[in-house]
């Protein structure tokens, strides 16, 4: 089995509060919601009382949604439950700043559900790779993530937490999640970390079934300084004044010649 991702179609209801279209301008922030509670059912997410996401299963992420900057009331319901303000399984005010990006994970077991919020990086040094890890496995101990037989890249990651980013040279790494005493929890051999790419790697599920949810936060690419010049034609309408002026001048010149000849006669 080569591909361990299954594409599951999910009904996404973009609420009125979400910014539609492509105007991701200076007044919006990007928010990505992740279901990281191993025993919670699929959920519906309401933003300011409007349905924003429906039927989000465990280990699914919404991708980045554009939301106006400010404070939003985010409330989570088990899918199928009718919305009633304050009756959800989890509710919090989410304060977001314009131009920034966030991951909002619903974590812990369903009886102790909590939001884990982190600001995401939308930049990376050219040619480098950037990575952070999140410990979202409610019953797992603190772990390190490091090279097999080598140094730790991240030390002492604890539930529920998301580390800062670390920039590395792009390349392939034999990584593992391990206990501080060196006992391997999960091998991640042959991890290919691409240049110009920012990753979040979250350890999810309970410790006896621990697994990794890997998300790409950002990929950098080139941008020009200006829009293309995509028309070679010059409209006749705009040429007319020049024709008009030219023709008029020619007429006056011709007229002048006539008059001059008359005077000379």
């Amino acid at each position, binding site marked *: 089995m080569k591909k361990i991702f299954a594409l599951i179609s999910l009904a996404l209801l973009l609420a009125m509060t979400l910014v539609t279209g492509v105007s991701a301008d200076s007044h919006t922030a990007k928010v990505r919601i992740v279901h990281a509670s191993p025993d919670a059912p699929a959920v519906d997410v309401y933003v300011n009382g409007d349905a924003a996401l429906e039927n989000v299963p465990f280990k699914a992420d919404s991708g980045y949604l554009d939301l106006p900057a400010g404070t939003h009331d985010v409330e989570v319901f088990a899918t199928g439950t009718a919305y009633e303000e304050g009756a959800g399984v989890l509710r919090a005010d989410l304060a977001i700043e314009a131009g920034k990006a966030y991951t909002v994970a619903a974590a812990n077991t369903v009886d102790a559900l909590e939001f884990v919020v982190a600001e995401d990086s939308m930049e990376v040094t050219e040619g480098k790779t950037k990575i952070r890890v999140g410990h979202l496995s409610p019953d797992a101990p603190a772990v390190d993530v490091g090279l097999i037989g080598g140094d730790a890249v991240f030390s002492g990651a604890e539930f529920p937490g998301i580390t800062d980013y670390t920039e590395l040279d792009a390349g392939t790494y034999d990584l593992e999640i391990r206990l501080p005493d060196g006992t391997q929890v999960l091998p991640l051999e042959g991890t290919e970390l691409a240049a110009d790419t920012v990753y979040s790697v979250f350890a999810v599920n309970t410790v006896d079934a621990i697994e990794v949810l890997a998300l790409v936060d950002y990929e950098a690419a080139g941008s020009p*300084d200006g829009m*293309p010049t995509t028309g070679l034609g010059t409209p006749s309408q705009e040429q007319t004044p020049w024709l008009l002026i030219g023709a008029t001048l020619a007429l006056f010149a011709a007229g002048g010649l006539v008059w001059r000849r008359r005077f000379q006669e």
Partner: protein
Amino acid sequence: MLGLLGVLAGCQEAEDEVSVRSENVGFAAEQTEKVEVEVNVKAAVPAPAGNPINASARTGIKPESLKIPAIGVNTSVQHLGTTENGEMAVPDDIDEVSWFSPGYQPGQNGRAVIAGHVDGIDGPAVFWDLSELQPGDEITVEGEGRQLIYKVHTMESVPLDEADVPNIFGYSSSPELVLITCSGTYDFSRGTREERLVVYASYVGE
């Protein structure tokens, strides 16, 4: 002589068709209704079955052809970067389009940008009818043995000075396709049209 001037003045009413056609264009598809969105969900697979980090990024293609059946476009795609003054470069051939190759690849997360001329010196060019596109129209980009299908969702005609270039060529957490051509009235002092028609389409499958 007055009669002759009158005839010349009459010429002024000849329509600049590109300008007329790109007047009042633009839409953003209603997104208050349910739309199906693909979400990556990790299947319950025992840990060592594969490295999920390696599967986290979408791979793109270097595009070879572009098809837009709704407006009869079927053309090959050049790979170009920037001109000397830093603008996105476009083909000399008015029947071909160009992909901004230093930017995002079609199929990769982010906005892949393809530009084409609206007109040539003697008449319509490849993107002459771009302003006729409607929400939901399909666009197909082919390359490297893959065929990517997009659906149009937004169109806007933006004044050159207000175009948010880093955003138009920027990152998005799903694959997007952006088509650009010229629109608006002709600005003789700048030697180009005053606006750019920008069409956004979302990746829907292969």
